[in-house]
């Protein structure tokens, strides 16, 4: 069991990891070795103290070095959900379950708006998780909106269970060819149904299905942490970065505006110190 699990490798998560490590806590940091696209893609950064006029690449590289120098490793896995229990948290990442006493959510914000009808029908013919709900559609026809890295693999998994998989790619990568996977290069526009969703409407067609799997890299905070209290699209926090779930903290873009590197890093530092204090009180 880790003292602190940190989800996200943008400035918020990295800053939290650095402070937690200095405080001698056992940590696990989930994210990507390239850290954060939002950082890498910035053209020029003028407002990060100590780094005047650097590119996003440069800032990201120096943060990478900082982690290396402190011996902080990045676990390259996506956390699918954080489950809250009385005495601990369990994070599911792929097939693994990792336990931690506290959690810091620093996953940034979700870009891209949901498909019309997606949220309304979530749990009623719309699913975010192929491995969770796939078996409910044994022998049935399903649609996959493939907007995540793993989507092609998940579509292949579904093709072993379902009679037919309609695959709507958002990226370049496609599932391996199979008799019952049909790739349709149209843009999903709306999900319709009555009691439950049964139709996916695209920019040029209409498809009847039993379930529509919408697979994205970034899940909304409410899906990532069941039971979390939100404030609009953000996780609701106080100045200590505490959320409604004791022992779980949030920082950076996911905790609200302004969206800025230094604000994310500052909140990451606060979240880590709050986690350390929480751990101290528990002992």
């Amino acid at each position, binding site marked *: 069991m880790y003292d602190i699990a940190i989800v996200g490798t943008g400035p918020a998560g990295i800053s939290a990891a650095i402070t937690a490590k200095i405080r001698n806590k056992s940590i696990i940091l989930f994210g990507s070795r390239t850290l954060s696209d939002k950082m890498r893609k910035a053209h020029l950064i003028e407002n990060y103290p100590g780094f005047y006029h650097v590119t996003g690449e440069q800032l990201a590289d120096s943060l990478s070095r900082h982690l290396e120098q402190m011996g902080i490793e990045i676990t390259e896995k996506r956390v*699918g*959900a954080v*489950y*809250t*229990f*009385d005495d601990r948290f*369990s994070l*599911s990442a792929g097939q693994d*379950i990792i336990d931690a006493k506290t959690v810091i959510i620093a996953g940034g914000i979700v870009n891209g708006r949901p498909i019309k009808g997606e949220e309304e029908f*979530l*749990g*009623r*013919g719309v*699913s975010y998780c192929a*491995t*969770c*709900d796939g*078996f*409910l559609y044994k022998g049935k026809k399903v649609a996959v909106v493939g907007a995540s890295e793993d989507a092609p693999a998940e579509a292949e998994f579904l093709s072993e269970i379902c009679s037919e998989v309609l695959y709507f790619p958002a990226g370049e990568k496609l599932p391996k060819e199979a008799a019952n996977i049909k790739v349709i290069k149209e843009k999903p526009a709306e999900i319709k149904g009555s*009691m*439950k969703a049964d139709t996916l409407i695209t920019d040029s067609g209409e498809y009847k299905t039993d*379930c529509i799997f919408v697979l994205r890299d970034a899940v909304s905070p409410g899906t990532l942490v*069941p*039971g979390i209290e939100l404030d609009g699209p953000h996780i609701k926090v106080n100045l200590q970065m505490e959320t409604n*779930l004791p022992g779980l903290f949030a920082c950076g873009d996911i905790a609200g505006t302004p969206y800025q590197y230094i604000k994310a890093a500052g909140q990451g530092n606060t979240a880590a110190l709050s986690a350390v204090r929480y751990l101290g009180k528990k002992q």
Partner: protein
Amino acid sequence: MVKVIRRNEFEDVKKAGVAVVDFSATWCNPCRMLAPVMEELSDEYAGAVEFYNCDVDENGDLASEYGITSIPAIIIFKEGKATAKTVGFQPKANMKSFIDANK
């Protein structure tokens, strides 16, 4: 204790004053996470609320009768009638408020 529904146990659900049925499956991660929460709640509500687990693979007929399209799905039955439903894992405190609000 959470009782497992195999076949006739659903008759008991219908007879119970208040019953909470957790529709789930062995292969579903959130279901596995929710199981210990329901187990603890069943002890806390012992004598007042009955708790059941219904495997949707083994009880496909019940799953379709109650419109289960995503799991875990938790349905509260009052005097045999389904009166409230919630979907997905929830921390114990939240599940407790859901039960208290609907029991």
